[in-house]
């Protein structure tokens, strides 16, 4: 049976309209999805920035607490409370060293090594360090 021309045109129009609605709906949904992704990414960036600044704030707080614990008043109280008995040195207790301190300490430590009576090496194995027992 042959359809009349106007009806065929209307049916075709409805099909095209439907197709257009589906297409534009898909495009619209795609755009919405895209925008949602943009929003989600922006929010993630914002949250990351917030967590970084949160870490920074807590770091500042901790640094301040450490610095407070290092203040002279607190240290003095700790010295008293823990009965540490730490006192400042007096001038009479100080032996002033004018030469290079490291060289002086090294010379003091190694002075025996270079004398003829002592060996020029250090023995770390205590068994080797003991003199051999003569046979009975």
């Amino acid at each position, binding site marked *: *049976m042959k*359809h009349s021309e106007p*009806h065929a045109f*209307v*049916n075709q129009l*409805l099909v095209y309209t439907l197709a257009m609605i589906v297409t534009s709906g898909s495009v619209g949904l795609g755009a919405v999805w895209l*925008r949602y992704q*943009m*929003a989600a*990414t*922006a*929010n993630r*960036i*914002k949250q990351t920035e917030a967590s970084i600044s*949160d870490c920074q*704030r*807590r770091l*500042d*707080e901790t*640094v*301040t607490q450490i*610095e*407070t614990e*290092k*203040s*002279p*008043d607190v240290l003095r109280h700790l010295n008293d409370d823990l009965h540490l008995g730490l006192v*400042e*040195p*007096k*001038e009479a207790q*100080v032996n*002033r060293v*004018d030469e290079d301190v490291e060289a002086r300490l090294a010379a003091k430590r190694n002075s025996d090594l270079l004398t003829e009576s002592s060996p020029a090496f250090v023995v770390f194995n205590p068994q080797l360090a003991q003199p051999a027992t003569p046979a009975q």
Partner: protein
Amino acid sequence: MRRGFASNYRTAVIAAMIGLCFASIAVRLYYLHVLDRAQFLKMIEKARYAIDVENARRGDILDSRGNLLATSNSQVVLGVDPQAVQTEDEKKWPELSALIGVPLSDIQRIFLTKTRPPEIKSPAATAATAAAAATKPEAAADQKPVDVSVGPKFEFNLADDGSGKTTVPSEVLDDQLDENGQRPIRWAKLRDDLDESVYDQVMKLHIKGLYGNRVYRRAYPHNSLAAHVVGFVNHQNVPVMGIEKYANFYLAGHNGWVVTEVDGRRHELAQFRTREVDPVDGYNVVLSIDSVVQDIVEQELTYIGEHFKPLKATIIVMDARTGFILALGNYPTFNPNEYQKASIASLTDPAVSDVLEPGSTFKIVATSGALQEGLVNPETTFDCNDDTVVLDGKVRRLPRDDEHFDHRLTLREVLSHSSNRGAFRCAYLLGPQKFYDYAKKYGFGEYTHFALGPESRGVLIPPDKWDGLTFTRMPMGHSVSATPLQITYAMGVIASGGELLRPQVIQEIRDSHNEVVFRYGREVRRRVISRRTAETMAAMLNWVTVPGQGTAPAAAIPGFQVAGKTGTAEKIINGKYSRTKHVASFVGFFPASRPAIVMSVIVDQASANLPGGVAYGSIVSAPSFRHIGEKLIQYLNIKPVDETQRPPSLLALSSR
């Protein structure tokens, strides 16, 4: 024949319906975009767009060894939107009360007060005034904190987050009257100094409408240490004094801001951010102050305060070679964390603001001037028992000395015995104008342009305005006044080899990544006397601390050469010199032949434990000089000078 769905009738109906729909949309759009456009645009712009200010972090203040003297901590300004409060949250209020330390009755009042009368001025306007005041620190410093209370029963504040800077304004809704003609409260402050950890616990309660704004608040970890140097920033974020005020340009940084959009629940739509400007954190300021030296000084000031009960006391320690200040302390002092509790007297910095007569410490001007001009030498003798002089044809009586001398005093003895008449004889040889010129060259009567202030210039009267007695009194340190800082740096001239150094306390400026932006160095204001004259003066001043020879054996440090000068100036009370109220001082340096440290101990009106009732510099100030000096020798590893390396001419003058 079967006809399709789209009959002529149905087609017409569908077409009409679609047409009607489009027509109604077109009409609505016409109303929205043409007729009511302006009104809706205004509404949308107010509701949708927001400007978020991101506060910059204020830079730190550090001492020369990197210890934090002032830093910025994040705190939370906690508030509630009473319109969003839910009745089912009421059972959580006691827990909230315990957490934030606000009485439950206050919490109930704030949560349940949802409106305010329309005639009450909008707090936003008050907050704007506060923000404007924050841009004018000098003006705001003298003002009381802006009271944003809107009634006797409750306080609330829309725009003030405590930082002194305007943030997201929520006063739009607040300024609109509700159906009862009342102004709805959209935000009421509960606490403005909540720590992050407490805020975390508060948020776990999930009380609807309760939220906080994060702000940076100043913290001073060492409490009162170097309080007068560091200064403080008040709760309106206005730097009030000290380095906080002087270096505010570096410390403050620049706030950032974001133009963004918010949804109907005022949540930010981050994807619509435009014009995003990041905040620039403030620079860090590194001081020349050493916390350990400062602590030594402040311990000594505490001792002076408890033992001598003075009105005020100041101790300044400077590096003799560079002029940088290692410690500057005052008594009484204050805790910048609790500046509200400090007395007005303790908030001034007498080291730079107060002027006092320098007394005998000023004798270095006349003696060094005469020495520099070649008018005298260390062996020149003076008759210090002669108590009169003829000036401008008139006989003038000279100020008396504390002791009677059985022989003519050498220049060295004039200094070590602190002879007033001997100092006048030196000034007399110089003549009034030259004597005045030397005093000026030493920095008296002029600003030092020191970082801390407000600074006083002191008083140095030019010779054409002197009365008959001025010339006889000025060489002994009367008729002239100076700040403790000026007196210290005048002695610093001799310690530095004849140069007047600029007092400095800022060593470096660093950015937030700790990179050095600017480094300050030694600055010479002028040469006052030659190096040779300075060395000769140092050698003579060394005798001041020699037992049996000088006025201040109590300042002597065993094994070290200490040069210095005592001062005991009578205070002017009701226009007359008082016999009972004195300013005691000792200003000196060590080692005398290779100065490392210049120190002044100035005690104003000591009133207890004074043998004879007079606060002599040798009794009050000199021992403190020694106490501090002994500790500094240990801490700064100052070594005694090998006498064999000194020139024979100075060796003869030296005491040991």
